[in-house]
């Protein structure tokens, strides 16, 4: 019975993240447009874009290899599995133990690894520029993320996300220095990993500044749809992650009835909305930075994360 319930929660979550991801992207775009005093596309525009792309034929570059065609599926699958492991509205996911936070980070790393390879497959200079910059950004963002994992794991005594959320829910005392440092670092990493302003601009097609868009420049049709959906999922995953660890309120605990789950879903949608709006406001207020400023930005995230972990190593009371 418990098995069935947890299995249902797991599947509902997998469906939910897939359904909500384009909506989140739509919200961010709409809010940004409104802040710029434009009307902006309707909220459901990302769904329409995806449907349109799915229905279009694929135009493959002449010398694209089998890897180029396999990568969208691999990227989407690894991102989806990673998103399925992050507790969104309930902690009792059936398979949440099959990968902890380190594994989730590494799964996203797998997606990036293959996407960067796909960028180099056709053999154009734009693909190369995107892959090379993505590799540079990842080489700093990933250690920063591991340091954040260290900080959180040392506070909660576990690298399992459900255990972390449970521990932070039960936390009685007030703010902790390590948590604050980890939150700042996590937001910085999330911005970099999702290619948002000021690191990268998801809306740009200006050659010298694009990173993610340069990698996927040669994709079209259903392949592009999968990659876009994976990118939306990744954004949703990071907001869910921040929500699950730093604002775990509303998460349905293991023994809850349908009301608990309903509250969980509502709270989750609320968190996503807040996260999306905050992201849009932040992006509107800030300018994109030069590519070679990015290491300084991510280096700061790495140092914040390291400081947080170090404080926990030195004393348990931070």
């Amino acid at each position: 019975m418990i098995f069935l319930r947890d299995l249902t929660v797991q599947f509902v979550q997998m469906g939910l993240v897939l359904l909500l991801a384009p909506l989140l992207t739509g919200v961010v775009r709409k809010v940004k447009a409104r802040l710029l005093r434009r009307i902006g596309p309707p909220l459901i525009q990302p769904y329409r874009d995806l449907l349109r792309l799915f229905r279009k034929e694929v135009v493959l570059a002449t010398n694209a290899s089998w890897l180029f065609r396999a990568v969208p599926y691999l990227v989407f699958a690894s991102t989806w599995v990673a998103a399925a492991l992050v507790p969104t509205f309930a902690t009792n996911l059936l398979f949440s133990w099959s990968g902890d936070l380190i594994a989730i980070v590494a799964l996203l790393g797998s997606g990036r690894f293959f996407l960067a390879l796909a960028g180099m497959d056709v053999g154009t200079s734009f693909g190369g520029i995107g892959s090379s910059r993505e590799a540079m950004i990842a080489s700093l963002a990933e250690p920063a993320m591991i340091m954040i994992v260290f900080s959180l794991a040392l506070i909660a005594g576990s690298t399992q996300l459900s255990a972390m959320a449970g521990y932070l829910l039960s936390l009685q005392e007030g703010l902790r220095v390590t948590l604050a440092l980890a939150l700042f670092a996590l937001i910085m990493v999330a911005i970099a990993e999702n290619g948002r302003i000021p690191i990268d601009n998801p809306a740009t097609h200006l050659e010298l500044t694009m990173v993610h868009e340069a990698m996927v420049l040669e994709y079209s049709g259903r392949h592009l749809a999968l990659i876009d959906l994976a990118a939306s999922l990744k954004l949703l995953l990071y907001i869910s992650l921040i929500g699950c660890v730093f604002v775990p309120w509303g998460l349905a605990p293991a023994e809850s009835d349908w009301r608990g789950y309903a509250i969980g879903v509502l709270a989750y949608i609320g968190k996503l909305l807040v996260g999306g709006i905050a992201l849009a406001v932040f992006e509107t207020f800030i300018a994109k930075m030069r590519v070679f400023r990015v290491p300084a930005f991510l280096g700061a995230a790495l140092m914040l994360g390291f400081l947080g972990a170090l404080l926990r190593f030195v004393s348990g009371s931070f």
Partner: protein
Amino acid sequence: MGIVFALPCILGLLVLSLVGVTLGHRRSGTAVVYGVSFVLSAALLANGGIALFSAAESSAWLPLGLPWVGAHFAIDPLAAAFLVIVNLGAAGASLYALGYGRHEKEPWRVLPFFPLFLAAMNLVIVADDAFTFLLSWEFMSLASWVLVMAHHHDPENRRAAFIYIVMASFGTLALLLAFGLLAGPGGNYAFDFIRIASPAPMTAGLVLALVLIGAGSKAGLVPLHVWLPLAHPAAPSHVSALMSGVMTKVAIYAFIRIIFDLNGLPEWWWGLVVLVAGAASAVLGVLYALLQNDLKRVLAYSTIENIGFIFVGLGLALAFQANDLASAAALALVAALLHAFNHAIFKSLLFFGAGAVLTATGERNMGKLGGLIHGMPATALATLIGCAAISALPPLNGFASEWLTLQAILLSPQLPQWGLKVLVPASGALLALAAALAAACFIRVFGVSFLGRPRTAVAERARDADPWSRIAMSAFALLCVVAGALPGFAVDAFAPVTTEFFGAQLSPQAAVPWLALVPVAPARASYDGLLILVFVAMSAVVVLLTVRLFGAKGVRRAPAWDCGFPDSSPVTQYTAESFAQPIRRVFGGLLFHARESVTMPPPGATAPARIRVEMRDLVWDFLYAPLALGIEMIAGRMNVLQFLTIRRYLTFVFLALVTLLFVVAL
């Protein structure tokens, strides 16, 4: 079984090496030598596996070597674990060489020494006294030196071999002194005696330093690594695979055997030293790798990175053991052993792939490759799996061992010493950095050489390797996936080793539901490679089916889009250098004194713009160059001693005798 079975197999390898001398010039030589090597390695592998899983110990004594010691041999769980690692790599290399070795132009320079090299590595592991150990160690160095010299027509290879033999002799000297200190004035070199006599703290510390030099130089710890990226690529590719994948593991074995087994109980600062050396090697190794253009040299530098990973695990194990945290020490040691096992698999695989590329194109320079995935699909797939595994991507095997190492680091707040409290998270950060850079490095390796458009005509014509090489590569690629999905079995297999040293072991992993990996407690951390693999595969299939059912089906081939400017020449692609340029700008200035200078032609002129990059190897400049200069100067001064009269020589002999008598008398 056990040692009684292993010794005849090793003897067989030695005999085979003599057969290789006679068969070297015949056509059949390659098939016979590598075929028999494969059978014997497989037998030794099975023997080691049985010894490891049954945790049976066996020993033997032969009246060879020093008259009052004889030759002791033994297989305990540690030796069994490394017999498995070494012979797995050896069997794979032999299988691969059945095909690859046929392209060898002068097989008589390789065939006699290949089995000798295998025999020497096995002997190091089964040796149970210092004399046999050092003798086998030296044989291992010499046999591999001859193999590095196999292509001696290239002056670069001769230089590599020279630096290798100098460093190897130096390393053996350090180990000789370490064993001398351990055996003490009594001079009983059997390990059983050394084990009982626990050394004084000062002596033990000195032994640690000497072993770090001796075994560390063979393994490639920074700053003793300089020979490794020269010598490993110079050898034929199957030997490169053995040297990088397997011989470095023998060095790890030597370190574990001496430090954990023979050198008494550790002190906490030992862990600190080993940890720092490991973390520094990990980051510097991968940064060097990122800046190389030679395919095999990239792989050699990446070995330094992985050795760093293993040493971080060993350092943690020492620190935990010194503080009586037995189960944490067991976790750290298992992580190190598992990484040694995994690295042997994927590094061999990658060298096999590099060898196949070398055979097909004659090129090791990535700048002249590209687009190989079209002509060499099997090699490309196997290499891709190897690249993903070494980049620690789940669900492959590299991630499992990295994950365990990180879990061991997360246990270290229990350590009381302040030095460790600060340096353990720092090395954790360095490891994470090294892992991320490794992913960048292998995106570069695969992306530049296998993807894109061919940069030269040879790369365009390249065709897949022979069936033997393909079988060896596919088998190792499959092993990467299996070992990644089921790491629990390997962890269980290493349990007797940790029991041997710490009296503690991890809870049996095979009993965990769904074959997950649970190093400490289920609530603390768990990882299930098998489930992740199944989930990713299932999600991909579900999406594929959905798209097939509801989406458009058409695929049209057209010229690349490239923002509307499809360029005609493959030269405009990103190269290995340009791929690494952002990372060079971030890290290179500090670590390599990298300087870029761009000369732009004046406006209107048609001359090309030029970019020049200068980099310096600081380790070489500040450690080895002054050392070599000093030795040369001293040698120059002492040159006069060569031209003295017989009277003076006799005076010297007399003085030396008197001095020695004084030393003995005091």
